[in-house]
């Protein structure tokens, strides 16, 4: 035992004390932190993008550190908080998440470099990464997501529908028929609050319109409007009529998605990042669409979503300019690769002839025709407000608040 221990200890000394790997002097190493773990759908795209960058920039090496989604948030926050050991380039979500790092002065502006890419990365794709009075750009978005209504057309056909119902009344009638036929209309994970917001936000935007919703998030207008109240009433009446899976509160999103793929629910409303899984695994006809409007004055294609997956560069990076160049390069590559693999929608100008799966094509069409886009509420708001907001959505779901209390509560607590 003693011998074993001392051998092990000697091993430790050798391993643990070894200095970080040394590179040749003329080689520059950039570190990139992301959430593209090996099992993530974007992992291969990152690997390819890095290889391509390294090939076109001899003497530069990118070290890619991947961390699982939830753990990543803790990791990047700890590093941003101490300001030590930060990577050169890091993955982030736009608006609120990146905003707090920008306010702390930890993020480098990419405004000046952007000029060279303006043709390929449209200005409207950068709105979620601009901060401050001078509206400077602090990150390079690569993919965008939209809340999409996935429909099992085989089940819909059984109750006599050949398409996703186009009006709210028809949608409700369809759900009634589904319930009567013994189907669960909507799958949702009550356990994960953001999944509830994937149902509430489309109802709200389709009742009040995109600009009003944006103003509410920004605290410019009150939540206390007939439109929001109507949307929450609609949500709660859908709950009362049993349109949602009665087991929802015990389910995680993984399980809910799997239920949809197994044909247990007729609809599944969630982000367009599900296109690939659903497209590949569902054994029935799937259609990707959008929820009908509650208010005829609002255009049907007022959608929730927008550019959110972003690469940003730290202010402390020793090779800031090179890192910024790499961020643009990788983002452009990722945008294309994720689109072609069907993982998500591109922020950068896409190859119009790309051969992509039907679902991603439908989502891309929706995005290009969209009347207006508003980012997910929990991305839009700052961290504290976002969680309060999600709490209210959960309270509406549990029917602990009436629609009136919901809007009053948001007005009182969000800003």
């Amino acid at each position: 035992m003693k011998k074993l221990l001392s051998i092990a200890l000697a091993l430790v000394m050798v391993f643990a004390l070894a200095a970080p790997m040394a590179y040749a002097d003329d080689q520059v190493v950039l570190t990139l932190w992301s959430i593209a773990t090996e099992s993530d759908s974007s992992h291969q795209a990152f690997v390819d993008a890095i290889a391509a960058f390294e090939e076109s920039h001899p003497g530069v090496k990118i070290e890619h550190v991947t961390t699982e989604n939830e753990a990543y948030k803790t990791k990047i926050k700890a590093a941003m908080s101490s300001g030590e050991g930060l990577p050169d380039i890091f993955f982030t979500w736009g608006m609120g998440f990146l905003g707090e790092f920008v306010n702390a002065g930890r993020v480098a502006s990419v405004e000046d470099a952007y000029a060279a890419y303006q043709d390929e990365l449209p200005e409207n794709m950068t709105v979620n990464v601009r901060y401050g009075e001078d509206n400077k750009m602090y990150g390079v978005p690569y993919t965008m997501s939209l809340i999409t209504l996935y429909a099992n057309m085989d089940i819909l056909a059984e109750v006599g529908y050949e398409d996703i119902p186009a009006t709210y009344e028809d949608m409700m009638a369809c759900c009634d028929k589904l319930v009567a036929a013994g189907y669960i209309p909507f799958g949702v994970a009550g356990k994960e609050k953001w999944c509830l917001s994937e149902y509430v936000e489309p109802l709200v935007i389709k009742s009040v319109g995109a600009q009003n919703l944006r103003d509410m998030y920004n605290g410019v207008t009150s939540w206390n409007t007939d439109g929001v109240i109507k949307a929450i009433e609609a949500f709660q009446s859908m709950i009362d009529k049993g349109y949602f899976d009665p087991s929802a509160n015990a389910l995680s999103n993984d399980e809910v998605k799997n239920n949809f793929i197994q044909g247990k629910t007729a609809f599944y409303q969630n982000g367009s990042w599900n296109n690939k899984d659903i497209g590949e695994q569902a054994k029935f006809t799937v259609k990707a669409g959008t929820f009908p409007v509650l208010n005829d004055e609002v255009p049907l294609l007022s959608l929730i979503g927008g550019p959110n997956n972003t690469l940003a560069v730290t202010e402390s990076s020793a090779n800031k300019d090179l890192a910024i160049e790499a961020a643009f390069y990788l983002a452009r590559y990722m945008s294309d690769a994720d689109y072609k693999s069907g993982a998500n929608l591109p922020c950068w100008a896409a190859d119009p002839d790309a051969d992509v799966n039907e679902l991603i094509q439908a989502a891309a069409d929706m995005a290009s025709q969209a009347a207006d886009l508003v980012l997910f509420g929990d991305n839009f708001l700052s961290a504290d407000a976002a969680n309060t907001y999600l709490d209210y959505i959960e309270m509406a779901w549990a029917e602990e608040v009436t629609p009136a209390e919901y809007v009053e509560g948001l007005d009182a607590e969000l800003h």
Partner: protein
Amino acid sequence: MKKPLLYKINIFLFLLPALFLFIAVLIAPIVLSFYYSLTEWNGFTTPEFIGIKNYVELFTSRSINISRALKNAFLLALLSCVIQLPFALWLALRLSRPIKGKTALLSIYFMPVLISTVVIGQLWLKIYNPDYGVLNVLLRALHLDSWTRVWLGDKKTALGAAFVPILWQYVGYHMLLMYAGIKGVPTELTEAAMLDGCTPAQVSRYIVIPYIRPILRVSVIFAITGSLKSFDLIYVLTNGGPSHVTEVPSTLMISMLFLRNRYGMGSAIAVMLIVLCFFFALLINAIFKEEK
């Protein structure tokens, strides 16, 4: 007796490694946390000193609702003391008497402690699953359909359902501690009592249990501080939901520290937890001493 200087230096040298680790890794961050708890800080900008405002908000805010979280943690601590520990003690007493398959049983009972929380959490999620979970399937098979529930999703049952795995997982841990204590009871004592005509139950009651009081004290301290700090399984099973009914202080703390970027408030909860745990540890020590 006057102690030579060398003796004092030696004492210091013996304490040095432990003190160094302890102060650098545990005490210093806690002192910092205490300072942060007096500030409004999002974790990134300069902390702004606000005095005890975080504590005032912590104990008055309806939306944080710390009293519910504390009530849950105390309930868990109580259940742990009145269900988990007595059951562990019963197992330990049973297994300390001659019985077939003792070694195997001891090993098996300890297994849940060895398995990672991820597995335990996923397992119980599957057991509680309303559609295909073992529990509901069993109830349906027994024609008790009306008893089936969305266990972790129903506000009435979620707390109980989340507590069962926590209590279950550490039975083996306490059992082994107690078993060890019982094995340390001198056989002369028990044998003499048996010769005097005591039943095994009486021997346990009047000889064994009083003898292993120091172990019981350790078990109670672990059970209570562990309950007050419990986090992992709650996080996997319910993450505080539905509608916050299963919130415990640690889940609130994590949400403040890393979700809401309210580092000051998160630190305030951490300080509160430390004070509570320390208070209980002292209280338990005092109770055990007094009874002596």
